[in-house]
């Protein structure tokens, strides 16, 4: 068990290191950010040099990278080109909004996918199953930002039931959460259906049924509980793409999260914020995967024997 955890930890460190390399060097791909910053005006050479020196861009690239890497370890991601505020504090300020959205998305996905998946599996081959599968298929066939726009159109513009943007109360969270959770619910419903079908064929289900327990009691207490494990793992793995999705959903709903911070920084060519924001989200995703993997190895000890799992 311990060797598995250590191997998994080392792998995580390697992944974060490679990601930091990719992000750092992609951003310097086109050369000097300062020249892009000043693209509008015609500043003097001295002014450019001054800014470069202040931002540490006059040092050689490898030295800049080590400074960046050192900052990463000590959670100091530099300062914004524009406002001079520390990038870490900018991110932490907005992290709550992003996590609230991600959490809302997961809740919506489960609230839709569990009933749809279970019903599809139990009523396999009937029209309910058919509609469940159609739902899953349609759920993965449109971009989530479009769903967001349609929800705004119906519930904010026409019915005026819910706000279309901002982050003030619970009602602001509803439309963004549905938008984020919907795509995931399509994939999740498919998974719940297939793992339910697998479990329902097991002998202990027949045993439970033959004991005269009511059908739904068997389905929920015996079948669903066992089908839950792969579902939870899947949610852990999907958390990454969910956080990626928040970047887009935040843009649709003017949600003041980390994703919107990154997109605003792109429009202002504020490279430390882009760099810091992206690596911050990436590290969260990698860590969530690590936690899911390790906790799963406690729940199901067979995992640790799998080579390089």
């Amino acid at each position: 068990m311990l060797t598995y955890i250590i191997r998994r930890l080392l792998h995580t460190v390697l992944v974060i290191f490679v990601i930091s390399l990719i992000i750092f060097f992609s951003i310097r791909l086109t050369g000097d950010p300062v020249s892009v910053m000043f693209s509008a005006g015609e500043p003097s050479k001295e002014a450019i040099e001054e800014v470069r020196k202040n931002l540490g861009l006059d040092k050689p690239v490898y030295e800049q990278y080590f400074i960046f890497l050192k900052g990463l370890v000590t959670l100091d991601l530099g300062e914004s080109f524009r406002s001079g505020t520390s990038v870490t504090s900018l991110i932490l300020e907005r992290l709550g909004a992003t996590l609230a959205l991600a959490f809302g998305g997961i809740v919506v996905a489960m609230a839709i996918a569990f009933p749809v998946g279970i019903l599809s599996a139990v009523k396999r081959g009937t029209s309910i199953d058919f509609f469940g599968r159609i739902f899953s298929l349609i759920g993965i066939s449109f971009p989530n930002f479009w769903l967001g726009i349609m929800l705004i159109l119906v519930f904010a513009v026409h019915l005026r039931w819910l706000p279309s943007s901002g982050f003030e109360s619970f009602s602001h969270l509803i439309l963004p959460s549905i938008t984020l959770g919907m795509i995931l619910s399509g994939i999740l419903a498919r998974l719940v259906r297939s793992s339910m079908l697998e479990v329902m064929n097991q002998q202990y289900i027949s045993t439970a049924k033959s004991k005269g327990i009511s059908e739904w009691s068997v389905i929920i207490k015996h079948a669903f509980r066992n089908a839950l494990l792969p579902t939870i793992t899947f949610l852990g793995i999907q958390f990454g793409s969910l956080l990626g999705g928040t970047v887009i959903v935040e843009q649709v709903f003017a949600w003041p999260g980390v994703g919107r911070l990154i997109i605003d920084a792109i429009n202002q060519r504020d490279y430390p914020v882009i760099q810091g924001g992206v690596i911050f989200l990436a590290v969260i995703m990698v860590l969530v995967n690590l936690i899911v993997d390790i906790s799963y190895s406690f729940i199901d000890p067979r995992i640790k024997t799998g080579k390089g799992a």
Partner: protein
Amino acid sequence: MTTKNDEKIIVKGKKSLGKKFIQFVKKNPAGFVGLLLVVLSVGSALFAQWITPFDPTKASLMDRLAPPSWSDPTGESVFFLGADQIGRDLFSRIIYGAKISLMVGFFGVLISLVIGTILGLISGYFGKWMDDFIMRTADVQLAFPFILFAIVVMSVLGTGVWKIIIILGLTYWVGFARLIRGQVIALKEQEFVQAARAIGGTNFTIIRKHILPNVLSSILVLGTMYIAEFILLEASLTFLGLGVDPTIPSWGGMLADSRNYITTAWWTAVFPGVAIMITVLGFNLLGDWLRDRFDPNLKM
């Protein structure tokens, strides 16, 4: 040598082509719908200049945000799906938008498919350090979500269709490589491969003649599904302003424009999304059918 009997069978096969088609439709209604939707969008992309009623880039401020002709109370609008914020015909722009989406889908998949297939074959067939190296690289790529990677690279490189295609191709090879590696490992132990090796077949011949033909159907299935995914990803990136150049008609770009006019011009927000859905649903349905047909056990 062809006997009389064989000829009869061939003729019979020809005669029942229409019948066979009806049978196919009855047996696979979902696959048929998928095929239909794919033909519809590919047709729109290929024949765009002949089927569009207006120039998709021609602005006309007189027609600013003109509603669809069938829902216009004044009866003045000549645009079937309405016009956008600078008076361009929405229908023509949607038809032209199919070009961009399908280009990204096809060429993106082509690149990732070629890279992924080659690396998957090497990884599965030769194993050892090459397998380790390729699969570790794949792990790292998987850990770094595409959308974040694309945001960083596109924000530096600037917009462009081919930039998206190359970024998609260079990230999504992992799916093909993993799929093919797993199948090659299983195939390698099969008797026909062992036999080919026993009679002195070189590695290259064995891969080309015995392994590759057996993984083609899975490549086809995954490729079809990736086209759907790539179309969605391109639309999302363009929506963020990090995809296709805003001057080129694209579905994601049209939706990005629509956000400011959502209260006054619902058509600008609805129809480009419907176009995306029709196309993506088509490829997903087709992919599902291909999977059931060739490879029912394939897990993706």
